[in-house]
C-alpha cells in the first residue's frame, strides 16, 4: 500500500509539472496584449514596450517561464498583478475564503442531500417518492446555475425580501455582535449555497440512485436476502458499501470546483471569490493572476484524485490486499 502511495505521489509531481507548463504556455500564447489595458492602441510603440518590459513580457517565453517557476516553487511568489499592482498570492488568498466557504458548504450539502435522497429513491424504486424526487432532481440537473440563482433571488430576495441579494456581509457587519455577524454570514450565504448545492445534489443524486439500484439488483443481494438477512442490513451494509465506492471518485473530481469557484454563482450573487477574480483577470489579460488561479484549480484536481485514490485504498479491502 505504501509503495502504491509513493508511486502515486511521484506521478502527482510529474503531472503537476507538465500541467503547470501547459497552463503557462497556453495563457501566454493566447491572443491579447496586457499593455493595451493601460494605454490606447494608438499610443506610441515605446510606451507599450516600456509596459511590456515592466511586466517582464519582453523576454523569451522560456525565460519568463523559468523565472516564474523559480519564484513560484522556491518562494511561493506568483508575481504582481499587472492590473492592481498587488501581490498575486495575497489576492488569491483573499478571494479564496469566500469561494471555499461557498463551494465547501454547497458541496457538503450536495453530497449529503444527493446521496441520502438517491438511496431513499432507490429503495422505493418506481414508487411516488422515487418519481417525484427524480423529476425534481432532473430539473435541477438541467438548469443552468445562474438561472436557478436568478429565480431564487427573484423569489427570496426581491419578492419576499427574506434574504439579502448580494455580497458576503452587510454594510454594517463590523458593528454587529459576534452572534449577529455569524447570522449575517449565514443570511448572505443561504441563497448562493442553496443554488450551487442543489445543482451538486442533483448530480450526486443521479449517481447514488443508479449505483444503489445496481447494487440492490445484484445477485449477491438476492442471495443474502434468500439467506434471511434483515432488510436494513441488506441495504445499509451490503448494498450501500458497494454502491458508495464510485462516489469517492465523483467527490474527488469535484474538489477542483472548491477552488475554481462557481463562477456564475459568484457573479450573480456579487461574491468576491476566486471565480470573479479569475473572470476579471481574463478580461484584463492579467497573466500572473490567471496562471495562479488556474494553477490552484489544477492542483486541486490532482489532489482530489490523489485523495480519492487514498480513500479507495482505505475503504476498499480488495485494494488493500491486491
Amino acid at each position, binding site marked *: 500500500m505504501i509503495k502504491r502511495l509513493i508511486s502515486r505521489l511521484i506521478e502527482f509531481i510529474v503531472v503537476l509539472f507538465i500541467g503547470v507548463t501547459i497552463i503557462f504556455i497556453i495563457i501566454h500564447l493566447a491572443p491579447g496584449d496586457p499593455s493595451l489595458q493601460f494605454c490606447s492602441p494608438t499610443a506610441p510603440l515605446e510606451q507599450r514596450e516600456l509596459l511590456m518590459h515592466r511586466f517582464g513580457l519582453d523576454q523569451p517565453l522560456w525565460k519568463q517561464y523559468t523565472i516564474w517557476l523559480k519564484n513560484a516553487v522556491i518562494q511561493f511568489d506568483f508575481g504582481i498583478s499587472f492590473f492592481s499592482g498587488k501581490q498575486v498570492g495575497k489576492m488569491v488568498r483573499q478571494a479564496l475564503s469566500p469561494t471555499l466557504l461557498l463551494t465547501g458548504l454547497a458541496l457538503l450539502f450536495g453530497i449529503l442531500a444527493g446521496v441520502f435522497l438517491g438511496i431513499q429513491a432507490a429503495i422505493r424504486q418506481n*414508487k411516488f417518492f422515487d*418519481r417525484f424526487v427524480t423529476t425534481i432532481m432532473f430539473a435541477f440537473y438541467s438548469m443552468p446555475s445562474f438561472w436557478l440563482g436568478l429565480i431564487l433571488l427573484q423569489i427570496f430576495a426581491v419578492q419576499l425580501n427574506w434574504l439579502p441579494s448580494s455580497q458576503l456581509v452587510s454594510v454594517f457587519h463590523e458593528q454587529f455582535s459576534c452572534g449577529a455577524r455569524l447570522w449575517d454570514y449565514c443570511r448572505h450565504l443561504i441563497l448562493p449555497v442553496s443554488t450551487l448545492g442543489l445543482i451538486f445534489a442533483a448530480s450526486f443524486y443521479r449517481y447514488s440512485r443508479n449505483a444503489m439500484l445496481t447494487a440492490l439488483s445484484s445477485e*449477491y443481494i*438476492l*442471495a443474502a436476502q*434468500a439467506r434471511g*438477512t434483515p432488510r436494513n442490513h441488506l441495504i445499509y451494509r451490503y448494498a450501500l458499501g458497494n454502491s458508495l465506492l464510485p462516489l469517492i471518485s465523483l467527490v474527488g473530481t469535484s474538489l477542483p470546483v472548491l477552488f475554481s469557484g462557481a463562477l456564475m454563482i459568484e457573479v450573480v450573487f456579487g461574491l468576491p471569490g476566486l471565480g470573479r477574480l479569475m473572470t476579471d483577470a481574463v478580461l484584463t489579460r492579467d497573466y500572473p493572476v490567471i496562471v495562479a488561479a488556474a494553477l490552484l484549480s489544477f492542483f486541486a484536481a490532482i489532489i482530489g484524485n490523489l485523495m480519492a485514490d487514498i480513500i479507495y485504498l482505505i475503504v476498499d479491502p*480488495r485494494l488493500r490486499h491486491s
Partner: protein
Amino acid sequence: MVSIKSNLNLEPEMNHLSANPILQVENLTLGYRRSAWFGTSSRQQLIIRDISFAIQPNETVALVGQSGVGKTSIANSILRFLKPWHGNIYFLGQNIWQIPASRFRLIRPRLQPIFQDSATALNPMMTIDQAIMDGMKHLKLSHAEAQQRLNELLQMVELEPALCNHYPRQLSGGQRQRVVIARALATEPSLLILDEPLSALDLVTAVQIIDLLRSMRQRLNLSCLLITHDLMLAQQLADRIIVLKDGVVIDSGPTQQILTNPSHHFTRQLIHAAGILNRKT
C-alpha cells in the same frame, strides 16, 4: 412441519409420489405490472399461466424452456421475490406467500438459490470465508464451530483452504461457483434452486460442477429445482423434466420418458437442438 393440502391439482405422473413434497407449486400465475408516471395507470404483462408441480424429498426437477419464457420468474416467486397473481406456493408445508415475513425468514435459509453468474453472486467486498460464514449466521454457531463447518464445506466443494482470504475476483469462474455452492450449503438447505448454474462456465468446469452437484445431492439428500434451457444438463441432473412454452407447461414427466418419448413437438425440437449442439461440442 405442517402438512400441505391433500386435494391439489398435481401433474398426473406425481400422484403416486409422497404426499409431503418439499415444494408444491399450485396453479401459479405470474406477471409484471409496471405503473406509469406517478402511478396513474399501469401496464400488465402475463408471464406464467396456471402451472402446478411438486418436488419430492431428494428429487431434482428441471424446468426447461427458451430464454424469456418465465423460468426465473417462477424461481423468484418461490424465493418470495416476485408475488404471484394467482396460486399458492408451499415450501415445507408453509404457504410462503400467506405466512408473515418474520415467519418466512425462519424457513428462508432452507431454500437457497444458486445463480448463473458467480461473478455477481458473491459480494465483491467479502473474502471467501466471510461469504461462506455469512450463510451460517442464522445457525448461531460459536467461532470455533463456524470455522470447523467452513473447513467441512470447503472440503465438500473441493476448494483449497488457502483460498479463504481471497476475494471473488481473485478466483476462477469454477472456483467462484464452488464458493456459491458452499455458501448455499452452509445454511443447511432442503431445496436448492439452480438457476442456469453452468451457463457462465466453460465445458470442463461445467462437467466438474455437474459431478459436484450430483454428489452433493446424494450426500445431503437435497431436493433441487434446476432451471435451464439445456436439455442435456437436465438429463445429467434431473429426475423429472417440465417443459415450458409461452408461459404454460407443455410437457412433463420422468427425464427418460421426456427424452425418449416427448409428447409435444416443441420438446422434440429442444431435444433435436440439444443433440446438434452436443455433437458439435
